């Protein structure tokens, strides 16, 4: 098990010009990314759906890699999207899951069957052609160039420490600096997409 922030630092070296949907890694990623117009830090638009959103983006922009840092809680809310992604086979989609075994933003309550779910096996069973699971940062860091060098859809799950939030919502530090509309608008301008 390792810290999300340390993984993101390692990933940053291999990002290239990928679009990044940082999901639950967002609060760390926005502080270290040097291509913010290619980032989509979204926070919590709805309960679940990050994978579906990032997948839709990957379908729309097939010439550019789309990297998602999903979480196991978000994924559990819409597990069926694994089937859709596997069916469509977006070659530019890289699906990382930060598995902290809990709902960290609501106080750290365990997700269903928290310690016993094999997400890589679920993805494999859904039809992802390439899946990986890591518990050690060194192993993941060493494998990253190979993982990102393979055609998608690629699924990578990793065990990370939980950054548990227990403060009331209105007392938490707001890490998102842009609205959802601004985030999308900046991306579209960067990619030359007419709004």
């Amino acid at each position, binding site marked *: 098990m390792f810290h999300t922030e340390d993984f993101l630092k390692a990933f940053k070296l291999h990002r290239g010009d990928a679009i990044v949907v940082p999901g639950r890694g967002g609060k760390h990623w926005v502080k270290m990314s040097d291509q913010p117009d290619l980032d989509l830090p979204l926070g919590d638009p709805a309960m679940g*759906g990050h994978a*579906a959103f990032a997948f839709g983006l990957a379908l729309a922009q097939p010439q550019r890699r789309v990297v998602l840092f999903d979480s196991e809680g978000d994924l559990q809310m*819409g597990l069926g999207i694994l089937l859709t992604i596997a069916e469509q086979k977006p070659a530019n989609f890289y699906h990382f899951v930060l598995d902290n075994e809990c709902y960290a933003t609501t106080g750290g309550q365990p997700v269903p069957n928290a310690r016993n779910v094999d997400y890589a096996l679920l993805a494999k069973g859904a039809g992802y052609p390439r899946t990986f699971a890591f518990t050690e940062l060194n192993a993941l860091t060493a494998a990253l160039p190979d993982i990102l060098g393979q055609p998608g859809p690629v699924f990578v799950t990793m065990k990370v420490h939980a950054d548990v939030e227990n403060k009331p919502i209105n007392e938490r530090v707001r890490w998102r600096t842009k609205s959802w509309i601004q985030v999308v608008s900046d991306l579209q301008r960067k990619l030359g997409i007419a709004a």
Partner: protein
Amino acid sequence: MNDGSPAHLSPQTVLGQLKQHGVTHVVWLPDSETNWLYLLMQAEPSLTLVSVPREGLACSVAAGLAAGGKVPVILVQNTGLMESGDSIRGWLFGFEVPVVFIVGMRGWNRHGAPTADTASVYTEPFLNAFRINYYLVESDADAQRITVAFNEAKKTKRPVAVLVGDEYHGFNR
């Protein structure tokens, strides 16, 4: 049941509307009346069909497609529309996605008589609760309402619904 009315909504009409409005992706989950439309869409090279196993996921897929510059439409049954509430709120309203829902009205009866299926009873109150405008389409003569829905979605940057009230009229060929 077919009441013998000649006023049917043909799948070709719906497909024509999708093409007319530049739809690139149909994010969908089949309902009981859309198989013939499915076959037409499948044969249409300008459309990519993206099937989802639960309708709420269609909203976040559509939001991603729209963010990437594509024109999705969401084709679902009214039951699934109602399942999608929080995703509509967060992913479609939140991101101002100008998407049209094409909604099969399970339980709909053109003559207003109640059916055993409660799905259509709750559909309009659901849409009203979410302040989603909707247009009822029952026959080819109503096709212009689909155009109105597409134009309104684009202008308002909000989801707009087309309710296909043809449940018992052979939309499935």
